């Protein structure tokens, strides 16, 4: 253990591979969420991820950000990353165009333990950009449709323009076997004829049964808080509920200490946690 080096060449743990932005599309009407498709310049360096995992996306000269991979591994490369403009790095990323170079390293983190959910009913509950990591899982489950029971996708955003992945929401997913998509918005507009209201009461109204079910939820902290209360009222136990934690990450590999909560490093022990695991962590997020 004390330093017998088996490595040859320069160290590479924190060094990204070079990639190129293949295309960029706006997910929201305001453009504050964009989906980037990124390919690696060296196809030999490609890796295969699992749903829930993330990658460190570099904007050279600015920095790195840990972004969840939103495309299912069943779709291979280029990978898709949906990024909301919130700060320095995401802001710089938003200013890039197809053809621009970025860095990529990963895949990091644990994954949704979908292998444990055979034949179970799946209830996906997401809000806003929170749908991004969940989408990867949804598509993966749909690619293995026979392994799971009924699927409910419950999703809400601030307004119809803020709904992400509209093609999936309106065209693809509703066509899937035994799969229901329920959409709501905080505030409708002229064309919107669907439900209006926040996700937690919407979830309560839909009232999915907890029997043999797993609930996967991801979204703004305030939404999560009330969704968890609602799920408890509906009879879901802590083990049946899975979510992702979002914290600032710098190294992504469990060394730099930034995402350390209790004895866990969110970048390696998470970001996917069951509610029972979260209850064991100190309340620091």
């Amino acid at each position, binding site marked *: *253990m*004390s*330093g*017998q*080096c088996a*490595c040859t*060449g*320069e*160290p*590479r*743990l*924190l*060094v*990204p591979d*070079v990639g*190129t932005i293949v295309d960029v599309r706006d997910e929201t009407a305001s453009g504050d969420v964009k989906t980037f498709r990124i390919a690696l310049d060296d196809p030999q360096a490609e890796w295969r991820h699992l749903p829930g995992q993330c990658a460190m996306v*570099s904007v*050279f*000269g*600015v*920095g*790195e*950000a840990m972004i969840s991979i939103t495309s299912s591994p069943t779709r291979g490369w280029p990978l898709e990353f949906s990024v909301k403009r*919130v*700060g*320095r*790095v*995401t802001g710089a990323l938003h200013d890039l165009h197809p*053809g*621009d*170079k970025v*860095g990529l390293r990963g895949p990091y983190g644990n994954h949704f333990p979908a292998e444990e959910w055979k034949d179970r009913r799946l209830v996906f509950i997401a809000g806003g950009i929170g749908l991004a990591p969940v989408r990867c899982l949804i598509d993966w489950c749909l690619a293995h449709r026979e392994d799971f029971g009924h699927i409910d996708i419950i999703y809400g955003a601030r307004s119809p323009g803020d709904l992400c992945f509209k093609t999936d929401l309106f065209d693809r997913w509703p066509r899937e076997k035994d799969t229901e998509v329920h959409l709501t918005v905080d505030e409708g507009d002229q064309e919107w004829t669907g439900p209006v209201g926040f996700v937690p009461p919407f979830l309560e109204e839909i009232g999915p049964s907890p029997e043999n079910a797993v609930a996967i939820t991801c979204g703004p902290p305030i939404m999560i808080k009330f969704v968890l209360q609602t799920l408890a009222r509906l009879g879901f136990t802590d083990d049946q509920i899975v979510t992702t934690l*979002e*914290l*600032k990450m*710098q*190294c992504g*590999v*469990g*060394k*730099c*200490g*930034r995402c*350390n909560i*209790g*004895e866990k490093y969110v970048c*390696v022990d998470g970001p996917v946690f069951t509610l029972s695991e979260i209850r064991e962590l*100190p309340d*620091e*997020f």
Partner: protein
Amino acid sequence: MGEGGKGMAPGPVPRTTKLVEASGLDGWLRAVAREARVWAPVKVDGRPPLFREFGAGEEDRLDLEAVRTVNSPKGALLPQTEPLMTYAMTKDAESGRPSLDLERAAPGGPVVVFGARPCDAAAFELLDKVFLTGDFVDDHYQARRAKTTVVAVACPRPDEACFCTSFGLSPGGTRGADVVLYGRSGPGVPVETVAYYAVAYTERGEAFLAAPAARAAGVADVPEDEGRCLEEVVSAFRGLGTPLGDRLGRIDVAARLDGLFDHPYWEKVSARCLSCGACTFICPTCYCFGVADCGALGKGVRYRYWDACKLPHFMLMAGGHNPRPAKSNRTRQRFMHKLNYYHHRYGEYQCVGCGRCVESCPVGLHLPLVAGEVGGLEG
């Protein structure tokens, strides 16, 4: 793991033992500095010594009289600023398409850490647990570690801030060291002026003592009739207590701390904290870091740099949310990490009792204080 203080277990088996005159050390280091980067306690006039690079020229002198250096030798393995790679954005001359040249930073040549105290040497093993184990091996650290030789010097006179024995270490401990120098006069003297027994415990240590630079410095075999003396000296160093360590006893607060996360104690003890990074940066076992890019006009360097959970912005997220906005949150994090979280993850405490935080914290908010006080709290 107990190798010192009362009831000590026998130490590791020495591979080779030599004798070197105290007056030969500066010359030895200068010779080594021609082939490797040497880190040692460098004498600074009128001030406590610094652990920093020892030059091959005539200016630097070794200072083994001070009980501790102000800073620790961890910078030899984990530099405060470490380049990871360089990047350069270019445009293809014909197509105009963007291109990026990326070069990974070379790990550098051999490093010798000379004159570390046994606490500092043990600290390297605590860092190894973080960087060399787990889901990922940090090959930046590993590459440097693989080329590092650690020569520790046993402590003749632990002072009132020393408490390595509280963690089962000792002023004559060998943990983390390739070679340990024991002053021939034994403990109690301010500094050894005659000669040192140099004992190698690893293959690398053995090679270091057999190298040309060592032989040129007069590193020689121990006279036959000194075998007994050597044993007694080593034993004396290993059995030394430490003033603060004796006062605190063995620190064993991890289980206690499991139930103390929400205790109002943290608010009280943290009130005097200045939220600076002094304790973190001089600590031999603290390792948190950040990663940043530095460049202009499409070219630059990505580097990592020491960071501290005590600094207010450590956990600040894009968008403004700070999970640890208050001093009590951050003070709690520091001590919970060292005395509980690290213990859960790696099986021992993240402290070697070097005493630097005791000396350097301007408001006395150091680990012995907290470790001592949490013992008396009701969970």
